[in-house]
């Protein structure tokens, strides 16, 4: 897994989510990127059940269970500031068994779907973030496959993102700060996605007129 940066692309003024995605993909294709199929990243939220909280009155922890089509046989489980567990796909069934301890907040399920592009050694995924039936934003994931140390290639990644995202190029992700010189892992991408989804959830819903 190469170093990845996940960011949000704001919807262009006066345009819908779909149209902005189309503008972005057209820019990528002009650059010379090749379409290579689709991708999907989804996230489900689990609350710790009230019965296990005891008298201390601590706030229930939120657990996120995520899937990434890049790793079809894996399932990622993470707490907000806590560890990330990488398990195999049977983990979902395990969560059903743990109904007593973790309850699924089904309304909070959020996912990002879109197309995958390859340009030289870069992998770009532009996806529409949807919560239920409504499209809430655009996620852009850029991966530089040959490099495995996060801080080494940040400048390189930024230069690439600037070539098609222009002014909307994000700053350095927070996970990079914690990495120092350790090798980048898929769990770091999932943490970035989780943060992105939380941000989008808190944002105001895109006005109906702008949606397709």
């Amino acid at each position, binding site marked *: 897994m190469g170093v990845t940066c996940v960011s949000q692309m704001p919807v262009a003024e006066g345009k819908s989510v779909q149209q902005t995605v189309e503008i972005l993909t057209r820019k990528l294709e002009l650059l010379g990127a090749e379409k290579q199929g689709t991708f999907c990243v989804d996230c489900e939220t689990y609350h710790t059940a009230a019965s296990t909280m005891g008298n201390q009155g601590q706030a229930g922890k939120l657990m996120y269970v995520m899937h990434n089509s890049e790793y079809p046989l894996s399932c990622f489980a993470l707490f907000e500031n806590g560890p990330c567990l990488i398990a195999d796909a049977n983990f979902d069934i395990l969560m059903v068994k743990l109904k007593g301890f973790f309850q699924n907040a089904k309304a909070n399920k959020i996912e990002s779907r879109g197309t995958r592009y390859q340009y*030289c*050694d870069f992998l770009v995924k532009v996806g529409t973030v949807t919560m239920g039936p409504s499209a809430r934003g655009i996620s852009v994931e850029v991966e530089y496959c040959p490099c*495995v140390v996060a801080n*080494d290639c940040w400048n*390189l990644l930024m*230069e690439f993102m600037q070539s098609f995202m222009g002014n909307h190029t994000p700053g350095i992700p927070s996970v990079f700060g914690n990495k120092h010189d350790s*090798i980048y892992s898929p769990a770091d991408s999932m943490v970035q996605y989780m943060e992105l989804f939380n941000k989008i959830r808190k944002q105001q819903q895109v006005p109906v007129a702008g949606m397709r």
Partner: protein
Amino acid sequence: MADGVLSPGVNLEAFSQAIAAIQALRSSVTRAFDCLKDGMRHRETLEGREKSFVSAFQDSLHSVSRDLGELERLSNLVGKPSENHPLHNSGLLSLDPVQDKTPLYSQLLQAYKWSNKDCGNSPLSTLEDPAWADDSKVLPSRTQQNDHCYFAPASNTLELQYHAGLASGLLNQQSLKRSANQMGVSAKRRPKAQPTTLVLPPQYVDDVINRIDRMFPEMSIQLSRPNGTSAMLLVTLGKVLKVIVVMRSLFIDRTIVKGYNENVYTEDGKLDIWSKSNYQVFQKVTDHATTALLHYQLPQMPDVVVRSFMTWLRSYIKLFQAPCQRCGKFLQDGLPPTWRDFRTLEAFHDTCRQ
């Protein structure tokens, strides 16, 4: 077939007689075995039976030895076929009877003749066999009168020489020779002057590599000899890349550069020295590394060469961090600056150098 047409040394009459002698020998041997098989015939006394059996068997053995002697005499008369095969063993291809479908031998002769430098002195000039002229659609016409040269006109060979001369001139401009022998050394001296740097004890090679390993902290070198005496190094540079170096005594033969997270072993756990990297940037660096190992040359001091190559390779620790010294950017066509100058070790894009 007339006598001595195909092969002037063979006495064909003696040949046919020898074949008849073989048949006679075969029948007398069969008779001897039949006699043994039939065993003793009926006689009045046991003695009589034994005597008649032994005399019959003796007769059959005599006839066998007589026939064998006859065969030996005739085989000496037959003589050896002519040794005059042009192209030696490939002349045996001419014995293939399916001449129309696979005119292999005649085409082979034509190709040899064409590529041969000196038309007049070729051993093919001894091929004056009129028997081959029968198959006129296979051979070119024999209207050429000069110097037994039946085949391609001399202009073809002259062209070849001309082009070969041009090519050698161009190639010699970039001297890629890495051995210590000079060109034009007389053939007598060449076999004696064995290049000593090619025959180094493996222990010496190991020592040199270990010393270089200790030179740079961020570079680690692993040496193994899975295939005989040539060393194979796995050089790991920080967390950026891995290089597989195939050596021949202390000379670097070939390198392959792969990413840090790529698999460098084959399925059975051996070092994979053939497959390329999956990433374009490392394929590019592999090409540059090959250029570097041809650039750093010192036939008399190969350990200095290895040291210089490793120093050059070490500059790639900043492959993803260093911008190009010429254009100032990080990316060009999606690639970071992959070229490292041989003297200054500065980073350039492949298209930005010079």
